[in-house]
């Protein structure tokens, strides 16, 4: 039963997020609780966390694109993106995001996962375009504006997640090949990656359907006014 104490860190995480403490504090508390219940002393926990933090610095490298994005935004990139969409007849939020979903899935399936992303494309281009299209459909309330922006980020995630596994050299595929090899099951990356295709189609249909419904909701409001 004492093993169950190892799960106390998970409980801290859930509780911390529910009670809306600062997530950085919650993470450190969860690490401390987990380490202590595994019998580590505080110095060992701090060292283990420090080593892992140093080894995962590549996760925070993406912020180097901010000076360019900032420069472009100061020179009107978002305004231009809005202007372009406002000038297009028939551009709706749903159609625009469905097109982006398709491009993101196809490029991820070719292994081009870093070509787009929240800092590179969603904030400077996709979200302002989706917002401009929605403004053409209805008088946006604040909540609707938030939802359109959130759906822009969501569409990027769905496109990335359910495209990238079709590419044979992506991390998750290589992880599975390595794990199965340890279990005595030999598979090639290609045998695994083809089975990502059915789910990719399902993801496009489900998320596309939701975007179509978003359009109906935004469009209908205009007719009601």
């Amino acid at each position, binding site marked *: 039963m004492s093993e169950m104490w190892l799960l106390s860190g998970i409980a801290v995480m859930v509780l911390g997020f529910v009670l809306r403490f600062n997530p*950085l504090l919650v993470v450190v508390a969860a690490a401390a609780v987990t380490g202590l219940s595994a019998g580590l002393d505080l110095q060992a926990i701090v060292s*283990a966390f420090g080593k892992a933090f140093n080894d995962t610095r590549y996760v925070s490298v993406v912020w180097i694109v901010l000076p360019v994005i900032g420069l472009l935004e100061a020179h009107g990139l978002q305004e231009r993106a809005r202007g372009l969409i406002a000038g297009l007849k028939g551009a709706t939020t749903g159609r625009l995001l469905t097109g982006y979903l398709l491009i993101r899935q196809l490029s991820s399936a070719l292994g081009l996962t870093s070509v787009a992303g929240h800092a590179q494309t969603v904030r400077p281009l996709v979200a302002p375009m989706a917002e401009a299209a929605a403004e053409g459909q209805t008088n946006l309330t604040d909540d609707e504006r938030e939802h359109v922006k959130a759906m822009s980020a969501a569409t990027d995630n769905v496109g990335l997640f359910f495209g990238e596994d079709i590419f044979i050299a992506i991390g998750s595929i290589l*992880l599975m090949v390595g*794990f199965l090899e340890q279990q005595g099951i030999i598979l090639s990356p290609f*045998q695994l990656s083809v089975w990502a295709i*059915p*789910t990719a189609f399902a993801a496009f249909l489900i998320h596309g359907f939701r975007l179509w419904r978003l359009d109906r909701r935004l469009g209908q409001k205009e007719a009601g006014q």
Partner: protein
Amino acid sequence: MIGLPFVYILAGLTFLAFAVLSLRDGTNPKRWGNGAFWALLALSMLAGDRLGDFGNGLLVLALVAIAGTGQLGRGSGGTTPEVRAARAAQHGNRLFLLALVIPATALAGTFGFEHLPGLVNPKQVTLVSLALGALLALVIGLAWLRPHPAAPLQEGRRLMDSVGWAAILPQMLASLGAVFALAGVGDVVGQLMSSVIPEGSRFGAVIAFTLGMALFTMVMGNAFAAFPVMAAAIAVPVLIRQYGGDPAVVCAIGMLAGFCGTLMTPMAANFNIVPAALLELKDRNAVVWAQVGTALPLLAVNTLFIWWFAF
């Protein structure tokens, strides 16, 4: 060979610039907090390998202390919408070309450096290409738009301040995953899951696997951490060995069931919390809520796919 060390130096210098500009930002009442936070991150990028494990751990605690006690603020200022609209009209659609320099360089680098062996570390080619793309776009932008030379860093610092502490949350959660692994949390969860599989029900076992992948991914924020645990507890012994399921189908689609979990958790901070900060949304979980409607039906579809295709 160019690799991560080059990228880390570039990132370190960028954060150092953010730190200096934060300290000089008179409009930010908490400029000392911001300055210290970005300076510590710059130190981590530039000299992390020389600080030692315990030193890096103390650095993390200092970062958390600054953010956790609310010492990060935001300054005012920046360009007005009128100025930006005027500039947008002046520069036109060529702004898009400049915006596309980063992805285009990342694309060209990923394929191009393959043909120049020995120049770039092949394992890190994507990050190196992204960094080169950012540099190239910056040089072109400075030459074409002719802003004040400090303007890109100043605008970048402004965006960075709007992201705030969320900037290091993904890295923190990745590190927490390492501590969980060290303590053996995965083994306990695996035992727990394998004890709840209904005896003799193939479909029940499939559900336990996909649901377990999604739930444990939500806890860890990462399907990579959940997969070895759930596969060792359920997929290999039960679905593959006992019921004779096709390992390619079970594993490939099981991983995607985990990705459905990634869509539904604040723990996957770089996908779910960071964009909420970047887009300046009021609810920091707004992206998670927007994704639940796609993730739940897709999780059900993945469960059915394994049931249909694997046996």
